[in-house]
């Protein structure tokens, strides 16, 4: 059962990772096209900034789920790492509950935005803002899924010593 769930989740992670890579590429190409358009072709592409910004918002919400899977969100786990395993497991679950609560609030709070967004269109692209606001519940949902999976994965060794890659943020 768990194995099947993990297989499905791996498939989903691949898909999300692919979408994140495409969003990043679109964001970069849009900004480069904006520069190129201005200097090389002498006209500005009005939609470029909006395409890039919307890609960024989706990228961050989906990418945060990928970062969660890679253990890339910085935490100070000196205290729980020093606990004996049964207590460390309690801490692991408590942390997951805190995160899940926040994600639930994030998703739930987005509902009024999405309802309102059905009647709003973006200034340059003329797409309904609902499609942009949707990133909040979708991203929160994916993060929650990765969260559950990470608790299962870390059950036997809840707080492994940090690896370099995990620390690498600004």
């Amino acid at each position: 059962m768990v194995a099947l769930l993990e297989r499905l989740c791996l498939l989903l992670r691949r898909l999300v990772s692919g979408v994140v890579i495409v969003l990043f590429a679109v964001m970069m190409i849009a900004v480069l096209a904006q520069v190129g358009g201005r200097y090389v072709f002498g006209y500005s592409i009005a939609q470029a900034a909006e395409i890039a910004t919307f890609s960024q918002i989706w990228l961050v919400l989906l990418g945060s789920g990928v970062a969660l899977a890679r253990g890339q969100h910085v935490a100070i786990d000196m205290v729980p790492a020093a606990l004996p395993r049964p207590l460390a497991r309690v801490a692991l679950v408590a942390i997951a509950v805190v995160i899940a609560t926040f994600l639930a609030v994030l998703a739930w709070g987005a509902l009024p935005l999405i309802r309102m967004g059905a009647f709003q269109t973006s200034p340059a692209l003329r797409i309904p803002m609902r499609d942009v606001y949707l990133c909040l519940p979708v991203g929160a949902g994916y993060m929650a899924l990765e969260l559950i999976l990470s608790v299962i994965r870390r059950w036997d060794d809840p707080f492994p010593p940090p690896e370099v890659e995990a620390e690498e943020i600004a």
Partner: protein
Amino acid sequence: MTVIALGFFGLLLLGVPVVFVLGASAVLALVTTTNVPVAIVSQRVFAGLNSFTLMAIPFFVFAGVIMDAGGISRRIVDFASALIGWVVGSLYQVSCVAAAGLAAISGSGSADTAAISAIMQPQLRRRGYDVDFGAGLIACAGSLAQVIPPSLTMVIIAVVSNVSISALFVAGIVPGLMCIVMLMLVAYFTARRGGETYRDAEPFTMARLGRTAVAALPAAGMPFVILGGILGGVFTPTEAAAVAGFYGLLVGMFVYRDLKPAMLPGLILRSASIAASVMLIIGTAAVFSWLIANANVPRMLGEWITGVSTSKLIFLIIANVLFLFVGMFMETIAAILIIVPVLAPIAAQMGVDPIHFSLLVIMNCAIGTVTPPYGVSLFVASSVAGRPVLKVARKLGWPLAGLFAMQIAVTFIPALSLTLPRLFGLID
């Protein structure tokens, strides 16, 4: 207020990731202390991410990742080694100079520290250098990537306190380079006391310098693209960051040929997930700082500080100590987003130049990433060196003393940070 503070530190100690500590304690405070619907959380997170200016962050992260994978870091270390490898304590000196070179390309202190450590640590070990001191020194030098432009931290602080990113970038050049020189001096005197090991330096030859300079030349184009483009008014900082990433991509793929197209998806995903974790912090910290502003903390703190003294210098000292303390315990970006909106208006009211103030905050943040208990650069440098954090931290004394001296100098001599941006006409 007490609810926010208790929730915050409790969750932090429990080991909840910083980004969710900010979010969850904000939710807790909203529910217990205000009548504001929690839906504001989603609005604030969205508003925090809906920014073209902050897009400089993912692009600068990408430029840093590409710089390392594309062989740019290695060429810069080679050049630094030809340039300064003949001085006593050569490997320490090379680390410092290479860190400055990478800092001019990358905007992230920990990425810089990781890149230098990966190349220098094996050499330090092989030649019998003090690995712990080396790791501490590299952590300090690498953290200065936040002070030497371009810098992610500067982009964030500029957005928060509404100052010009270009002016802040230029203001960081002189103090950043001074810090590097200071670290080189510290390394020199430490190495001189260290005995024969540190004297086996490589001879200086013009031929080697020339050869490595030619190899490093395409990489050296990146800082010119970034700074020149921004200062010349060719690009906005966001566009410059995108162009820098693209330029690094071209250099890595077609000049150095270390970068293969098949590596790209992995590198992009890596950049995206690093950038996402940074930017989600911006989103959740935005909720948190809205709460603090709502609880009237800025006004209360302002009244307290003006009650203590109306002297500009006293204020700067208080601000420095506060930031240093917070930087020791907290994640840099979260610290900026929470504290800068509180202190910046007071600084302005006291007549402190906003660029000068922002730069002091940045320097404190850089020092904060090296100081235990919580210092990302220190963690990265220790872990690449394969040494316990506490052993490395014990050797940090002199390098940190050097950085503190510079911090004091930049605090009391505003000209150090403000002269260059004035010269370029970015501020008056």
